């Protein structure tokens, strides 16, 4: 009886709001990132295990036990003073050689204003010599031309100046970071490289076929002076 009465009663329900529209709008909006946003259980599990291991590893006696547990007993963790890296190692240069060794492969011209380099590196294909000066510029020499590809390696944020150095065509690139581009002698393929030192670059296309590149924290006049001292 009661059941029948209830079933035959039409209810005056409150008006149903437009939930579909609200839901669509919420789903279209980018999700709000909250640091306490619910994360999948596996993420929490992984994070918890990682934290526990990190805490245990911080203490030497438990570290040994953890390494045992993980089957990594043969791993030894030693604390040592870091060794100084070989000077010039970070630069994309060739093998370290003496100036005399480099001269057997390439007619190296040393900038007289700088004197003998701290280190010399020799690379092949194409043959090039990099002379490194501690606290000073990087001087590169190779048989190549920079015209016209160098302009493609320069971003619009850099300043690009055309000069003559000792009667040879030269470019001075300053300002923003810039790349280096050249065409090796006897080749049609341009080579593109990233900039190696933060600083300005002077390129001189010497009449003897050597492309001289001086890169470092130098202004144009200093760079030109160095280039003019190259024998």
């Amino acid at each position: 009886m009661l059941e029948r009465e209830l079933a035959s009663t039409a209810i005056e329900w409150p008006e149903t709001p437009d939930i579909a529209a609200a839901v669509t709008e919420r789903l279209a909006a980018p999700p709000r990132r909250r640091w306490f946003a619910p994360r999948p259980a596996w993420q929490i599990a992984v994070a918890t295990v990682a934290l526990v291991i990190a805490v245990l590893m911080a203490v030497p006696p438990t570290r040994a036990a953890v390494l045992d547990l993980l089957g990594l007993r043969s791993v030894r963790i030693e604390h040592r003073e870091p060794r100084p890296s070989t000077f010039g190692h970070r630069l994309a240069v060739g093998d370290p050689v003496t100036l005399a060794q480099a001269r057997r492969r390439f007619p190296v011209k040393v900038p007289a204003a700088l004197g003998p380099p701290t280190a010399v590196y020799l690379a092949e294909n194409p043959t090039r010599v990099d002379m490194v000066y501690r606290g000073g510029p990087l001087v590169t020499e190779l048989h190549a031309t920079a015209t016209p590809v160098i302009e493609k390696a320069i971003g619009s944020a850099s300043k690009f100046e055309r000069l003559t150095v000792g009667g040879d065509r030269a470019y001075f690139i300053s300002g923003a970071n810039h790349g280096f581009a050249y065409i090796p002698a006897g080749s049609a393929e341009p080579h593109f490289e990233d900039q190696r030192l933060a600083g300005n670059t002077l390129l001189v296309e010497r009449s003897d076929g050597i492309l001289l590149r001086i890169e470092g924290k130098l202004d144009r006049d200093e760079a030109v002076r160095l280039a003019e001292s190259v024998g």
Partner: protein
Amino acid sequence: MVGRPLTEQELVERAREGDGTAYATLVRDHEETAFRIAYVICGNAADAEEAAQEAFVKAYRALGRFRSGEPLRPWLLAIVANEARNRRRSAGRRTALVLRAAGEGRPSGEAAPSPEAALLAGERRAVLLAGLGRLSERDRTVIACRYLLELSEAETAATLGVRPGTVKSRLSRALDRLREEVGEDA
């Protein structure tokens, strides 16, 4: 394909692939029942609206866990009921549910009642609904699902997250308590 409305299963597949329009269609199909269940549980329209909205957002994100081929409505309503209950709990309010009968009872095969009979019937309904509103959330929800929203026993079970057998016994106890509320003995 032209002109044929998409089946629920097709809409679900599309919604899973990120089709918002397909999901909006599904929400529209079920928002009324969802809102009413939330209203019965929460006891007010504002909370019911928020609960239903939140539930549909959660359901969208959980669509991957919905088993294809099963009816969508009970699955959705279970999420809605859960959300509504959470909201009711956190709100801490325990207001009685207010339900009003619409002007007329549902049309039946019987002849139109006399004005006196209609008045009596109207009073009787008001008494019943007031009694229902005073019941616990658990009791009134099971009654509302079965008799006011006309969900099947299986759908009611899914919505409330209980076994179908439990619906029977819970419903029978809820009706007993409603009889007590309105001054009838079981």
